[in-house]
């Protein structure tokens, strides 16, 4: 019952006119950029991060989170209508969503993905409400060694479970951790890797790094590869969206299974929504009595991945808020934002900052309901967005990146660094080195160093502390299993032209 009273307090926080406004802005912006292929939610969240410094932390977090889950709703639109995913996790929705569209069932596909997104999101929010406080209670006993080990697990999972070579992922994590060392060492006050540049004394600017690696690199990649997203001219009316009884039948259980898989994957540290959608799709295909219809417009092929996508996005808040360990690069940026606001996510957050925690949780539901309204009766409006040509979009995004990065510290060096990181991300992505593990390593680097040093101080410099403590030992064992599993699975690493990871 205590949970319910805390939740009602959360709703009081989230139902203030201001909170509603920022929730609405967040989810609308999220849907907007989700619909448009070529602009990722990470870029948008990083872009809005400096804006939240002018807001209360709760309002800022409500807005940033809204962008994240709002984008998942929007991202299926382009997958279905144009066969181009609005964001990486929606790639799988192309497989059956686009054939449905070709069969004249685009409206139904859009309806199903929206309902599946809502179901998946709601399922994971329930989990968040009842499971996060339990996890936080358990995590209160975590020591520095345990934290260090869970971060090792998160980084290993993030680099080995992504698409492409696990070794390349691990190399990028190391590079990210090393980049996290730039700045002033908190123990000794020594400047590290600052090269006399004042802008680096506080470390590399997170917004500059995220914008470069994702925003600029994405634009460079689209333009140089010539895969400029094409504008579409589809029209969808509400009448076209009503599913047939057969569609409902196929939808019901696949959506629930997707929600379950997504929630589970989302909760694990180091895994993102992309892998959740892939697993949900693979699971449906395996369970299906006629797997041959997959790829030709199977309803299960869009409902399960979309439910999993949204479930994993909402569930990803569980480890980020209760342990302070983000699941993927987007959550890492969110964590970085909270740290800048002076809020340290962790087990204490649920109790000491109860208003913030429950306010955000309540806002998720409000946001999901707003999204339902935005995406069902108003779908025609979003579909129209697809007719904006990319040649107008990318200069505008670059402009927002320049002024957005500049506004963080009012500093041109940061903008220059954004360009450098952009070229770096572009160059590495071209060769199958993913950027997401780098960003995750960058955010976790300083936290890992701090916990590593503290653990060794507390144990009289005995490395055995990492395996003596059962919790830490369990995380390290899981890391080892994961490493063995991923290298056995991908024994051949000759995939230089591997698909660029998100």
């Amino acid at each position, binding site marked *: 019952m205590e949970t319910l009273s805390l939740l009602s307090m959360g709703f009081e926080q989230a139902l203030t006119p201001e909170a509603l406004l920022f929730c609405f802005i967040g989810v609308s912006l999220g849907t907007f950029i989700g619909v448009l292929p070529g602009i990722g939610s990470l870029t948008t969240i990083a872009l809005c991060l400096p804006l939240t410094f002018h807001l209360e932390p709760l309002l800022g977090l409500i807005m940033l989170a809204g962008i994240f889950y709002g984008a998942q709703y929007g991202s299926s639109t382009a997958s279905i209508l144009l066969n181009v995913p609005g964001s990486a996790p929606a790639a799988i929705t192309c497989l059956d969503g686009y054939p449905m569209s070709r069969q004249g069932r685009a409206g139904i596909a859009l309806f199903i993905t929206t309902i599946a997104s809502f179901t998946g999101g709601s399922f994971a929010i329930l989990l968040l409400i009842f499971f996060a406080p339990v996890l936080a209670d358990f995590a209160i006993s975590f020591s520095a060694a345990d934290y260090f080990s869970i971060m090792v697990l998160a980084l290993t999972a993030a680099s080995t479970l992504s698409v492409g070579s696990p070794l390349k992922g691990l190399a990028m994590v190391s590079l990210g951790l*090393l980049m996290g060392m730039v700045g002033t060492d908190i123990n000794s006050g020594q400047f590290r890797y600052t090269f006399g540049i004042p802008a680096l004394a506080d470390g590399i600017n997170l917004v500059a790094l995220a914008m470069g690696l994702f925003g600029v690199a994405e634009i460079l990649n689209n333009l140089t590869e010539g895969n400029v997203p094409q504008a579409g001219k589809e029209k969808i009316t509400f009448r076209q969206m009503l599913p047939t009884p057969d569609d409902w039948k196929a939808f019901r259980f696949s959506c629930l299974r997707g929600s379950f898989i997504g929630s589970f994957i989302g909760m694990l540290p180091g895994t993102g929504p992309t892998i959740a959608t892939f697993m949900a799709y693979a699971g449906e295909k395996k369970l299906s009595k006629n797997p041959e219809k997959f790829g030709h417009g199977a309803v299960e092929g869009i409902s399960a991945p979309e439910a999993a996508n949204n479930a994993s996005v909402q569930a990803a808040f569980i480890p980020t808020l209760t342990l302070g360990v983000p699941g993927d690069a987007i959550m890492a940026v969110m964590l970085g934002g909270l740290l800048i606001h002076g809020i340290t996510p962790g087990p204490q957050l649920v109790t000491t900052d109860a208003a913030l925690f429950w306010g955000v949780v309540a806002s998720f539901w409000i946001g999901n309901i707003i999204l339902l309204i935005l995406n069902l009766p108003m779908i025609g409006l979003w579909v129209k967005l697809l007719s904006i040509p990319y040649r107008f979009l990318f200069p505008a995004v670059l402009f927002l990146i320049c002024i957005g990065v500049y506004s963080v510290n009012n500093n041109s060096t940061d903008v220059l660094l954004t360009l450098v990181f952009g070229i770096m991300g572009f160059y590495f992505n071209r060769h199958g080195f993913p950027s997401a593990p780098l960003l995750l390593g960058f955010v976790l680097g300083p936290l890992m160093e701090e916990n590593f040093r503290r653990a060794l101080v507390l144990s009289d410099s005995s490395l055995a502390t990492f395996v003596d403590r059962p919790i830490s030992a369990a995380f390290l064992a899981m890391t080892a299993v994961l490493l063995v599993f991923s290298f056995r699975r991908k024994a051949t690493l000759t995939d230089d032209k591997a698909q660029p990871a998100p």
Partner: protein
Amino acid sequence: MLHAVPNGKSLTRFFRQFLRPSLIARLPVLLLILTGLIAGGIAFGYEVGSFTDMGPGFVPLMLSIALVLLAALILWREWPMIQARAGGEAAGHDFAWRPFCAVSGGILAWVLLAESTGFFIAAIAQVVLAALALPGPRWRSILIMAGILAVAGYFLFVVQLGVPLEAVG
């Protein structure tokens, strides 16, 4: 693995052969190895200390070593493929320089102009340069877009959020 390296070459020749810019452009692992070596070298300059008394250079040194080892492992595993490809592929031959230069040039223009010539000139220069990434004569639409973005951006960031930039410097 060194046996995969062409026989009879000394270490210096190995490095000279491997750290050519054209090769780095194709093999990011070489850049990672180089970064790891430099970062490790710099970390030595800070106090490294030991497990019992870690200095500021300790963790960076460990990470540099990890980076070099991982990159070397990738190089070793990819080596047969790199050899198979060698000679067949002309580096940077068909790279699309136009969008690359336009996008980079736009951002550089902002960096150089924002504080000296003010917000409007920097914003318009940035948008116009970036828009040149795609071919086609459409100066009017580019200029209209640049103008709208500059005015909207000025009101949002400079007037509303107080970013300290002059309209015209």
